[in-house]
């Protein structure tokens, strides 16, 4: 492989270059306001070395999958929290499909005097013993233990799964109707202990669909979300939906969702929350309820998105790509509001006389840049450059810009 590279480099060492610098996505290079330098931001990549990389790449378009692609999810599940006392008194849950899967997990008891790392995991002693569960079916029949379950797993059987310690789960037997059930335990559990009840209604005809138009947003940019309930694929009227946006650090921002004529709910507002102080994605979470015959159709849903600061921009069209001993270089000028590690990416095309462009390589360079302006040099290694035929030229395009310190895709 190494020998091949050397031979290639000898063959192309005498190449004469004829290039222009151009950008396929010039529209994206327009100046936009950067995040105020006064705003404190976290930095997760503090490497100071400049790193250059290039490789052959024949994909038709490096940024074919745009950053504004919608993201969708559909939910047939819901969850809620109850206390030990609630479980002893009896809690109701609704199903609209046969064989709903129920999971019951004891939750950690938060001790405000202790840091997060010292918070204790729930004890398996708090697990709900399915044998001590009483289930009242929609027809009013009271069943004991596992009688109404087609499948059941206790906390011991589930201890090697990713679920919380003490989790137990069961499926309602398909012989029983859908509708409102009551769960009640005769077990001695602490009144104040919290439990999560999670219902996966996999065979229900109802699905809550949630769509975000854009999974990557800057401050001030409009977020557009649509929530609709489908019954067997047909939109049905949603009665109530509440939602919030949750930061990577866990801060909750309630949002107002508005009903539309189609029966769906929408959220369409610019986002102006403070930036998170840690990496990770934000989430939009919704809870919905709709009456559906003898039971209530409940659904929870969530979708992740990036909410990021605009910490840098490409200043203007870069100067012409130029040949060097190492290959072909192209300098990109950028302005930066916050010191950090920034990566510039670019794609090298061969353009035929008739204007047809074909990508042949990509180059990436990352370096640490202090607040202000700097240039980042892309290098397409000589071994990647074929001899040009008559009338052909090189073109560097699809310039991308990433803030590796904040994990922001800027361009």
């Amino acid at each position, binding site marked *: 492989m*190494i020998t091949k590279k050397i031979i290639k480099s000898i063959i192309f060492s005498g190449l004469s270059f004829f290039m222009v610098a151009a950008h396929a996505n010039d529209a994206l290079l327009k100046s936009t306001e950067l995040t105020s330098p006064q705003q404190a931001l976290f930095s*997760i*990549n503090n*490497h100071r*070395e400049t*790193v*250059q*990389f290039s*490789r052959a790449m024949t*994909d038709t378009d*490096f940024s*074919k*999958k745009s950053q504004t*692609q919608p*993201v969708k*999810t559909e939910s047939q599940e819901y*969850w*809620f*929290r109850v206390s030990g006392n609630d479980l002893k008194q009896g809690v109701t849950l609704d199903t609209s499909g046969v064989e709903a*899967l129920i999971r019951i*997990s004891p*939750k*950690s008891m*938060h001790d405000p005097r202790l*840091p*997060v790392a010292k918070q204790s995991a729930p004890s398996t002693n708090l697990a709900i013993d399915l044998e001590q569960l009483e289930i009242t079916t929609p027809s009013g029949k009271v069943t004991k233990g596992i009688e109404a379950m087609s*499948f059941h*797993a206790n906390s011991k*059987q*589930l201890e*090697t*799964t*990713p*679920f*919380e*310690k003490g989790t137990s*789960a069961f*499926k309602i037997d398909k012989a029983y109707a859908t509708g409102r059930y009551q769960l009640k335990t005769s077990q001695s559990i602490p009144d104040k202990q919290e439990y*999560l009840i*999670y219902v*996966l209604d996999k065979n229900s005809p109802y699905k809550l669909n949630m769509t975000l138009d854009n*999974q990557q947003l800057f401050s001030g940019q409009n977020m557009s979300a649509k929530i609709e309930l489908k019954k067997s694929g047909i939109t049905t009227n949603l009665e109530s939906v509440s939602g919030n946006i949750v930061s990577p*650090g*866990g*801060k909750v921002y309630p949002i107002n969702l508005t009903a539309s004529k189609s029966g769906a709910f929408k959220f369409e507002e610019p986002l102006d929350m403070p930036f998170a*102080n840690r*990496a*990770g*994605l934000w989430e939009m979470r919704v809870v919905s309820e709709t009456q559906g015959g003898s039971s209530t159709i409940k659904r929870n849903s969530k*979708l*992740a*998105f*990036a909410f990021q600061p605009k910490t840098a921009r490409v200043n203007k069209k870069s100067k012409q790509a130029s040949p060097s001993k190492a290959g072909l270089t192209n300098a990109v000028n950028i302005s930066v509001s916050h010191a950090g590690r920034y*990566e510039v990416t670019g794609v090298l095309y061969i353009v035929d006389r008739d204007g047809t462009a074909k990508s042949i390589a*990509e180059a*990436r*360079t*990352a370096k640490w840049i202090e607040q202000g302006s700097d240039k980042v040099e892309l290098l397409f290694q000589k071994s990647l450059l074929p001899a040009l035929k008559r009338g052909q030229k090189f073109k560097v395009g699809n310039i991308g810009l990433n803030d*590796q310190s904040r*994990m922001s895709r800027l361009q």
Partner: protein
Amino acid sequence: MKILSPLFVLFVLFSNSLMAEKGVAFVHGTSDNTDALNDYWTPAMVNSVVAGLPNSSNYVVINCEFNEYAWTSPAAGCLAEQITNFINNNNIDELKVITHSHGANVMRWILSNPTWDSRYPAIIATTSEVTAIAGSSLGTPLADAVVAGNVFEQLLGWILGYASDAVRMQQTSWMVYYNNNWLLGTNGRPSLPVSFKSIIGSDVESAFWDGDSYCAGYQYQVALEITQNWLDSCSDGFLNCSSQAGAGSVWFYDTSRTKGREPLSHQQSRRNCFNLDTILRNDL
């Protein structure tokens, strides 16, 4: 003889420079490991696979904190450090990487973000191929279910609950974002810089009368059969087949190559079950 000796030395040096020094790295999945050889892969699996190397001591079993986000220093940083040391200490110039589960995402992070860290380009240049066994390339609904209902403790500004950052990252809509923006190799995205091929686990069998259910531990089979309830019919108990096939190319679905056409559960696909070790050995 005195005249020949320098020529012989030159010949040996020249021969060595032409011969690739092959090595294998075993990259574990979501977990913090200090002894992945014994705790995650088992020596029986690793020793059987590396028997296919020209020098069977040329392997490294990675031990990192893969409960963190893939890009962090304890995850990808640690992986880069251990692979770099392995390459340098053993003069490896052809590295095969075998990953399991979320290990595929951490490796894919390195391959997709070559300028993130100065160690990454050399790793990419040396890696000849990645074999991703049961990789969680598109995330898993099980991660969504695990994270669901976690309490947000505003006083602490932190999430209380069982899920680690790695589990959060493997939620399906999170992986949509990372695949579309920071990772390569999924549908519609540019290809990875090295070959990345997947082995798919398609089912879980836990019949107590079937001896095959006991490979890698019967209790794990029972648990994975339970968690299959959250997944598609084609799944290994932790991941849908679609997720495992979500990046790079599919090498094979378990039953097409395993002994007795047995499916590989998520637990079995990191152990020497149903000739998986032999298949991997013959591929070196």
